[in-house]
């Protein structure tokens, strides 16, 4: 960066990272006379490529929000709950930390698991010292609030299993046909939106066709060639019908890809499990009249179809199973479920299959690679439902049957393979061969890898992660189990909770239910910018956190496979640095956590954990007998990755290190001999194990979705029949708000007030008029469970007639957020927040509720 140089502590353009959402775009911030006057995109980094979304531009208003907390507060009213005056008393930091240390010391001595640490999906993951503090402290109860509400527990699970990555994109450089299901990837939300929007726009200009399947004509649909309105929560039925058309009507599939890169040829017995070689236990395939282990070098051709006898057992290749399985999903049957006409389903399948150009090749940089220029992407809208895993698997199989996986034109796992910086070879990670020849991903940003599957065991954590051996985890169970630990066989009760940058009442479900559950926790601390609903209702201590423009932080390389733009381009890691100091009385939570660790006598443990978490290698490891500042830890981290000359100071000056992506990193599929499942055989044994554990403990737990091939199954909302309740209410995101966090920002509020979605309830114009509802009418949305939310109607022809869409996480009531007060509605209010609205495989929350709508009479 040329002009973006800053004399330390002086004015100028300062490179740092935007944290108005989790995407971590590179920004440069103009500081004049010690005051931030502008935030703009940093063209020197691939994170945003110089582009910034509205939230990033508006960051300055969050920084200078006059309603930010400036002093630690202590509750003096022992009563807690929504609407209860906490009777705050201002106290010093020292007093606040003394209170914390006293409580936490006692808990650690007794049982450290009694501490819960709640973070947020909204804040970007740098060092996340609160997580590492939790590990060093010894608690297993750390979760990210909003994970399962806003996020893609099903999609990420399939991202790992099929693409070795947290998320994925179409290869916009070469894709010719993109099908989006409940997803705005490349348009607004999802990951790397600022960079991927440019790539996607370039692809559209080049001629890439775009079809969007969604109950509402969303941000991407309004720019698409075709919008396909679908009944809420039925995407899996459409996907399975399309696969049926491809396999059984058109005979379109990529046999070479399926044979060599998936488990499609593995023989499956009548019990649904692989037929295994007696000696090696490896799965068998059929080749030239005989069974052989899948990796037998003498195999000439893998059979994909047929029925065979092995040791007296009848079996067939997994692909045959899939083909037979999807026969039940005729376009006519799927039309009844989805409301998408059968002819449209056939046409979409035919267009997608044709666009994939199975068998075609492309030369890039002198390498001949398969070309499959068709892709299916999906996210919260499609998979934020009861059967999230099954839906994600069905959608993902569309890509798999045409071979459009991690090759030019198809779906690319986001930066799944990294061979490292040319000088150090770090960071390095990538897909590897695991059990049964199936892929194991390295560099995965989650703590728990979905494969090889973990083992189900009796609950020990409030999030019940022990009962999700293949899931990435969910925040929903904590609400249920904290209220009844004994009932869930958790051997202790929650004694304390530290909430960092999160507003759990607005991000976990019905606020009353969440407040009631968490009010049982005797000691709650909230670190935040503002006095939000959660702090007001539940916190005993509220501690003012610094804004991201006042913080020093690293960019963790675990995030390369979820934040760096996907496809050809550059690798890069940035630094977050303070542009201005925090106001007096405000402290960065990471600094506070270091001090807490020291006062609790666990700094050595924390250093040991950081050595592993940051993958520090000698000589760049932290000494467990020494104390470090944040700057010292970050310095070691960057030097470890990029050599001694790349110190923290170097990063602060340059803002970014980058190097070109290699072709093999971007299109790794042809180069790495691993298989991915089209048949999820191991889910059968995992499901059996979860069933055995839960039955033994007498826990009510549904394991029916642990199946090897996906089905469409109805959400609760589809099954409920109640007179007058004929809408499916659901929540969706807008690009100019980050969950429940940004409504307080006046510029973003102004944007939201000027358009017709953010603060409104969207419904079909004709249907609304039949009920006497006009544009701008105050209305009530009431779920069959008796939960109600008030909103303002906005009408459009471009909404499925059964859909009722509530944007974002509005409806704030905390006096500490005066700019957000009373604006919009909180869709999650409509849910009782229980396991009936959860996917038991991925933990994803079902965000659709059967509802009715009527005008507010008042």
């Amino acid at each position, binding site marked *: 960066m040329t002009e973006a140089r800053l004399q330390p502590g002086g004015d100028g353009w300062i490179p740092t990272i935007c944290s108005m959402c989790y995407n971590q775009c590179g920004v440069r911030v103009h500081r004049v006379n010690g005051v931030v006057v502008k935030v703009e995109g940093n063209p020197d980094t691939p994170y945003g490529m110089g582009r910034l979304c509205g939230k990033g531009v508006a960051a300055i208003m969050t920084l200078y929000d006059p309603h930010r907390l400036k002093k630690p507060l202590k509750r003096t009213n022992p009563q807690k709950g929504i609407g209860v005056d906490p009777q705050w008393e201002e106290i010093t930091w020292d007093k606040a930390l003394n209170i914390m240390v006293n409580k936490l010391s006692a808990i650690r001595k007794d*049982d*450290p*698991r009694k501490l819960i640490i709640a973070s947020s*999906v909204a804040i970007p993951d740098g060092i996340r010292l609160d*997580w590492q503090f*939790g*590990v*060093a402290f*010894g*608690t*297993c*109860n*750390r*979760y*990210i609030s*909003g*994970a*399962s509400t*806003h*996020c*893609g*527990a099903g999609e*990420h699970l399939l991202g790992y299993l099929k693409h070795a990555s947290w998320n994925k994109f179409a290869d916009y450089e070469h894709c010719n046909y993109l099908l989006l299901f409940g997803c705005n990837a490349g348009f607004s939300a999802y990951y790397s939106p600022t960079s991927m929007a440019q790539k996607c726009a370039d692809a559209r200009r080049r001629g890439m066709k775009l079809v969007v399947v969604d109950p509402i004509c969303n941000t991407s649909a309004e720019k698409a060639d075709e919008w396909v309105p679908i009944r809420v929560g039925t995407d899996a039925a459409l996907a399975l019908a399309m696969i049926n058309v491809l396999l059984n009507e058109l005979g379109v599939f990529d046999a070479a890809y399926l044979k060599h890169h998936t488990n499609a040829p593995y023989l499956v017995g009548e019990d649904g499990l692989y037929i295994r070689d007696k000696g090696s236990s490896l799965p068998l395939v059929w080749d030239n009249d005989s069974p052989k282990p899948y990796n037998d070098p003498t195999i000439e051709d893998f059979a994909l179809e047929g029925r065979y006898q092995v040791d007296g057992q009848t079996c067939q290749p997994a692909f045959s199973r899939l083909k037979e399985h999807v026969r039940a999903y005729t376009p006519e049957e799927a039309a009844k479920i989805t409301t998408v006409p059968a002819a449209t389903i056939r046409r979409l399948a035919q267009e997608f299959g044709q666009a994939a150009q199975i068998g075609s090749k492309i030369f890039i940089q002198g390498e001949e690679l398969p070309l499959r220029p068709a892709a299916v992407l999906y996210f919260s809208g499609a998979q934020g439902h009861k059967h999230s895993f099954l839906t994600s698997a069905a959608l993902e199989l569309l890509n798999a049957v045409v071979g459009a996986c991690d090759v030019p034109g198809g779906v690319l796992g986001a930066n799944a393979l990294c061979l490292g910086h040319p000088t150090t070879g770090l960071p390095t990670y990538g897909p590897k061969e*695991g*059990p049964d020849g199936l892929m*194991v991903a390295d560099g*995965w940003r*989650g*703590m*728990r*890898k979905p494969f*090889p*599957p*973990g*083992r189900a*065991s009796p609950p*020990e*954590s409030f*999030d019940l*992660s*022990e009962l*999700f*051996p293949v899931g*990435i*985890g*969910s*925040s929903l*169970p*904590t609400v249920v189990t904290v209220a009844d630990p004994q009932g869930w066989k958790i*051997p202790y009760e929650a004694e304390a909770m530290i909430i960092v940058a999160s507003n759990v009442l607005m991000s976990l479900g019905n606020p009353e239910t969440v407040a009631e559950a968490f009010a049982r926790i005797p000691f709650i601390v909230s670190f935040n910018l503002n006095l939000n609903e959660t702090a007001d209702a539940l916190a005993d201590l509220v501690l003012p956190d610094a804004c991201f423009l006042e913080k020093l932080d690293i960019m963790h390389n675990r995030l390369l496979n979820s934040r760096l733009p996907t496809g050809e381009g550059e690798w890069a890691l940035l630094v977050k640095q303070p542009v201005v100091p925090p106001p007096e009385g405000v402290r960065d939570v990471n600094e506070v956590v270091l001090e807490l660790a020291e006062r609790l006598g666990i700094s050595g443990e924390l250093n*040991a*954990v950081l*050595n*592993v978490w940051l*993958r520090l290698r*000698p000589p760049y490891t932290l000494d467990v007998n020494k104390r470090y500042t944040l700057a010292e830890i970050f310095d070691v981290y960057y030097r470890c990755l990029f050599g001694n000359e790349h110190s923290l100071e170097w990063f602060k000056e340059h803002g970014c290190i980058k190097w070109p992506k290699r072709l093999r990193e971007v299109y790794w599929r042809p180069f790495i001999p691993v298989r991915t499942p089209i048949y999820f055989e*191991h889910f059968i*044994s995992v499901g059996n*194990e979860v069933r055995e554990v839960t039955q033994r403990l007498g826990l009510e737990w549904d394991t029916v979705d642990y199946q090897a091939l996906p089905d469409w199954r109805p959400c609760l909302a589809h099954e409920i029949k109640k007179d007058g309740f004929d809408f499916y209410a659901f929540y969706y995101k807008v690009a100019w708000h980050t969950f429940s966090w940004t409504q307080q920002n006046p510029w973003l509020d102004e944007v939201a007030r000027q358009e017709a979605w953010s603060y409104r309830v969207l419904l079909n114009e004709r249907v609304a008029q039949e009920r006497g509802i006009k544009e701008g009418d105050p209305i009530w949305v009431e779920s069959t469970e008796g939960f109600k939310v008030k909103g303002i109607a906005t009408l459009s022809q471009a909404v499925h007639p059964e859909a009722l869409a509530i944007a974002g996480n509005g409806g704030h009531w905390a006096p500490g957020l005066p700019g957000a007060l009373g604006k919009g509605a909180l869709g999650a209010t409509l849910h009782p927040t229980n396991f009936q609205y959860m996917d038991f495989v991925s*933990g994803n929350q079902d965000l659709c509720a059967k509802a009715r709508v009527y005008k507010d009479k008042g």
Partner: protein
Amino acid sequence: MGFLDVAVSFRGITRGVVDAPQVQLRLSPDATVADLLHSLGDRYGPRFQERVFAQDGSLQSYVTLVVNGATVEGSDLGHRLAAEGQEQVEAQVFIFSAMAGG
């Protein structure tokens, strides 16, 4: 034939899995990571085994083992703990939580 003394420190989420933060074990000189973990499994029982081993017998993804300062790959259980002639080894077993995240 000599012995290998292994000083094991448990870090992270060990409550409910082991009863003490440190333990001293005596193994054969050619002991592997698998031998160490199985010996700990025998000592601490099914709770330890369930938490540490994945279904296929490899390390659970949130368990990291550091032997003499170097991280052991989760599937590399055949890795020898000590070099020829070495009599003492330090091992750290980190059990992270399978944190809920999305």
